[in-house]
Every structure is written in structure tokens, then in C-alpha cells.
């Protein structure tokens, strides 16, 4: 403000022009990044909207003929005998598996993630970075490699079966691969760090004097946790839950490797339409459904975290 007062010119035309030039320069500087993303990420999503309203071609791809079947086929299908509409049971069971496995995975990451976050946040300040680092490194290592590691663990000849057989607990190897259990187990392992980090941030900000006050008022540890700590770290828990839930819903690699060909999740159902299914419009419609579901969760996440920041002040 003081600078503006010092200029000998009236703050009119000249300044407006300078501002416009500045805006132009900033747009120009951002242009390469924007072009790359529009060409190879955002733009193709718009093309996919168009494809979802076309007719499937005989050998994959599409015919340029308007059709709503891509969308209706997501939940209903025509009976091959009498042409009536029936529920697409195969799809509905895959939606249900995606939803329930994502929820179970979120719950499991909560059970293991919250104590881990608490443990890290209550370490002496100098040691916290080390423990945090231990949680973060697996997260940044290759997802496929971590999934393969789980496969090694639960295969029929894997380490878990080997140990259980040696101990005489089981007589024959347990079939864990290619089950819903395998997918849930794998996703919990793979996405756990996404729960730990936001909960850690919440516990780190926790004012322990409030917990002390609860104890002074004769609250047991459990009551203090339930009535004081939990409400205070709730935003972190919600944030972590959404952060785990979102990639679970869109998971592709983990269910493909650990679930095999029978136990499909949403991502694998989408792939199927571009492979054997040869129904690109249906695949496009399913993709857009998944995208909208994830967007809703993301918007919720942004709301939670911005409210948390507002509360922090």
C-alpha cells in the first residue's frame, strides 16, 4: 500500500496494464505444464465421457453411434432369452466387494495405524523423525514389489504356510492366495502408511494438558481416550480413513496379483471391458462412475482438513 502511495502516477491505467502483463507472463510460464496435463491426463478424460455414450465395436473400440447402453449396462443387462432387463449381478457383486473390502481395509489400517501414530508422536522429539522415516520408506517403494512380497508370504508354499506346517498347527497348506482375504491383507499392508501420517499429525498437535486434566478428574485411561483424546484427533482419523479408502476403491495391481481372475474389484472390472469384454463404452462409463465416487470422497477430505486447519487457529 505504501509503495502505491509513493508512485507519482495515479493508480489507474498504468498499473492495470502492468498487472495484466504480469498475469500473461505467469500463464505463459505455466503453459508447458498445462499443455502436458491437458494432452496426457485431463483431456483424455473428456474424450472418455464421449466414448461412454457410443456403441461398442465388434472387435473392441467403438462405433460412432449414440447409445445409453454403456451407462445402463453398468447395473442392468438384457436377458439373452426374453430380452427383459435384469440386474447385472456380476457387476453388483464386484461393486459390493470393492466397497466392503475398502471399508474393511480402512478399519484394519485404523486398528494398526492409530497406535503406531500415537507411538511415534509420543517419542522424544529427536527420535520421531526416525520412526516417521521407517513408516514412509515402504510407502515410497514400488507398490508391485510390496504386493509381490505379500504374495511370497501367503502362497501355498509361502512363509506363513511353511511355519504353520512346521509347528503342526495345520496339516495341509491354507489356500490364502486368490481370495478376498488376500486382497484385504495386501491392501492393508500397502496403504497403512497413508493412515499413520495424518493421525500422527493430529496426535502431534494434541494438547496433553487436556489429557492430564481428564486424569486429574479421575478419568481412567480408557475414558480419557474415548472422551478427550479421540474427539481431539478425530480430524486426523477421518483424513487418514479417506486417504486409505480412496486408493482401495480404485485399486488395480493388488487385486490383480492377489485376487487372481475370479475375485475382481472395480479397477479390474474396468480393465475387463477393454480386454475380453470388448465393451469400451461400458468401460468408460464404469471409469467415470469410479472417478465421481473418488471425487466425492476427495471433496469430503478437503473439507475435513480445511476445517481442521481453521480449528487449529
Amino acid at each position: 500500500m505504501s509503495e502505491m502511495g509513493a508512485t507519482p502516477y495515479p493508480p489507474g491505467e498504468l498499473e492495470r496494464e502492468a498487472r495484466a502483463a504480469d498475469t500473461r507472463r505467469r500463464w505463459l510460464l505455466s503453459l508447458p505444464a498445462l499443455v502436458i496435463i491437458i494432452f496426457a491426463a485431463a483431456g483424455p478424460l473428456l474424450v472418455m465421457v464421449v466414448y461412454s455414450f457410443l456403441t461398442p465395436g465388434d472387435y473392441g473400440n467403438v462405433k460412432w453411434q449414440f447409445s445409453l447402453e454403456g451407462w445402463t449396462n453398468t447395473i442392468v443387462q438384457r436377458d439373452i432369452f426374453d430380452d427383459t432387463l435384469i440386474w447385472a449381478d456380476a457387476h453388483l457383486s464386484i461393486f459390493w466387494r470393492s466397497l466392503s473390502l475398502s471399508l474393511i481395509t480402512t478399519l484394519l489400517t485404523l486398528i494398526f495405524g492409530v497406535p503406531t501414530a500415537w507411538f511415534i508422536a509420543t517419542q522424544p522429539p529427536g527420535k520421531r523423525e526416525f520412526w516417521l522415516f521407517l513408516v514412509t520408506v515402504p510407502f515410497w517403494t514400488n507398490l508391485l514389489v510390496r504386493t509381490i512380497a505379500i504374495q511370497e508370504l501367503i502362497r501355498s508354499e509361502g512363509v506363513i504356510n511353511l511355519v504353520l506346517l512346521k509347528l503342526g498347527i495345520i496339516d495341509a497348506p491354507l489356500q490364502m492366495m486368490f481370495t478376498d482375504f488376500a486382497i484385504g491383507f495386501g491392501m492393508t499392508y500397502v496403504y497403512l502408511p497413508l493412515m499413520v501420517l495424518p493421525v500422527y499429525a493430529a496426535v502431534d498437535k494434541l494438547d496433553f494438558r487436556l489429557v492430564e486434566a481428564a486424569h486429574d478428574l479421575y478419568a481412567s485411561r480408557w475414558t480419557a481416550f474415548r472422551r478427550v483424546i479421540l474427539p481431539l484427533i478425530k480430524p486426523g482419523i477421518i483424513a487418514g480413513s479417506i486417504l486409505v479408502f480412496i486408493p482401495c476403491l480404485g485399486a488395480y495391481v493388488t487385486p490383480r496379483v492377489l485376487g487372481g481372475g475370479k475375485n475382481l474389484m472395480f479397477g479390474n472390472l474396468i480393465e475387463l471391458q477393454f480386454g475380453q469384454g470388448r465393451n469400451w463404452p461400458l468401460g468408460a462409463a464404469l471409469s467415470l462412475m469410479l472417478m465421481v465416487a473418488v471425487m466425492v470422497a476427495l471433496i469430503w477430505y478437503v473439507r475435513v482438513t480445511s476445517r481442521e486447519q481453521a480449528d487449529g487457529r
Partner: protein
Amino acid sequence: MADRPVKQPKGYSVRTLPGFAVLALFTFFALYAPITILVAYSFNAGTSLAIWEGFSLRWYYQAAANEAVQDAAIRSLYLAFSAATIATIAATMAALATTRTRHFPGKTMIYALINQPLMVPEIVTAVALLIVFAAVKVWTGHTSMIYLIAAHTAFCVPFAYLPIRARLETMDTSLEAAAQDLYASPWMTFRRVTLPLMWPGIVAGLMLAFVISLDDVVITEFVKSAGQDTLPTYMLGQLRRVVTPEVNAISTVILVAGAILVTLFFRLTSRRG
């Protein structure tokens, strides 16, 4: 403190919760045990994945001699290097444009577009790219690595952008103003003041983008043309057949390379100022 009731025994801390430490330590164990087993078995002399038959580098030699693995490894590195470099340059420019400034028209939109690849599940982006690139491939008859490089560059941009932006936001403009007071041209100011100051952010962004590109399976799987396997998609294909310890050996190499890059990344970003 002195007149607190004696209800609390010595060493009582409100920071301990029963069972939490045990669960936490178990979690750390569970995070590292599967990886450790994977690495251990890559050094197994036997063909079996389960029975330990002594230490050997046999599977590493076999993987290194496998031409498909060699090709995939070179392709992965070439792809990650190209995509990360282009993405980092674009992200650096975008970060310079969108930080340390008043709100200008379209700023929010630029920010939203740059982060767009993070908002959409990978499988969705992958099939959208499949649709568009399939049409372009038919139309032009051109099937080089350019599609993979474009796809990887796009999803690397937000990852490169984040640390660069974070770095820029810790820098105030006073040093640049001082340079300009001393009659440095805008280009000179950028090259001698701004660039050296933001360099750690740029290197961090480059490394993050490199790791992200190297790790990608889903988008690569859908965009690649025949014979364009990267190391991760090659391994994914192998898993369909019989798993050999060779996959463990390749996994170990990827793990170690990734861990080194991530450690360096943390070193770069945690040292403030």
C-alpha cells in the same frame, strides 16, 4: 505438582495407552518382515521359493543375463529419465509462476489442473489414455515411446511441482530485489540468485518424479505398445506364469534403488534453509 493426589504411581504418564506400544512395534515389524523375506529369498541358491538352500547370487546373474530383463530395465530408466526431466522443467516454470504472487486471474485453475493427475484413480487415467492413444496410433501409424513419455510426464508434473513450490515458498523476494537494485538483468537475477536458492527443491522434485515414473505399473500397462515392457510391467506379466526367484532378485534391485532415492529425497527436503 506437589499437591497432586498420590493416586498416580511413579512414572505415570498420560502419554502411554495400554497396548498401543505393542501394537505399534508389531506394525513396524509387519511393515518390514515381508520385504525382508522377499530380499532374503532372492539370495536363495535353490529353485524353490520356500526352502532355503544356501546363499547364492545365482538369480541376480540369471536376471542380468536375461535379455528381456535388460531391455525392460533400460526402457524403464530411459522412460523415467525423460519423463522426470521434462516434468521437472515444466513444474519449475509453473512453480515460479504460481508462488510468491498476489492472486491473479486463473491461478486457482492452474493449480487445480497441475494437481489433476493426483485426483483421479490411476486405472481411470490409464483407460482414458488407452482410448485416446489407440486412436492416435491408428491415425498416425506411429508407435514409439513418445506415448509412454507423454503419459509419464503428465503424472510426474504434480510430484515434481510439490517440493519445488514448497521450497519457493520458504524464499522471500528480498535477495532478488537486492540483485535488481545492483543492476542485474532479470535473467541474471534468475540464474545467479533464484535458481541456486531453489535448486534443492528442483533436485528433490526431479528425484520424486523419477521414483514415481519408475514405480508405475497401471498407466504403463495400458499405454505401452507391443514390445514396450518396463521392468514393473515385465514383472506383472511374469507373475501370470510361474514365479521364480528371478522376480525376487529384480524386486530387490528396485527396492534398493527406490530406498536410496527416497532417503536422498528426505535428506534434501528436511534440511531447512
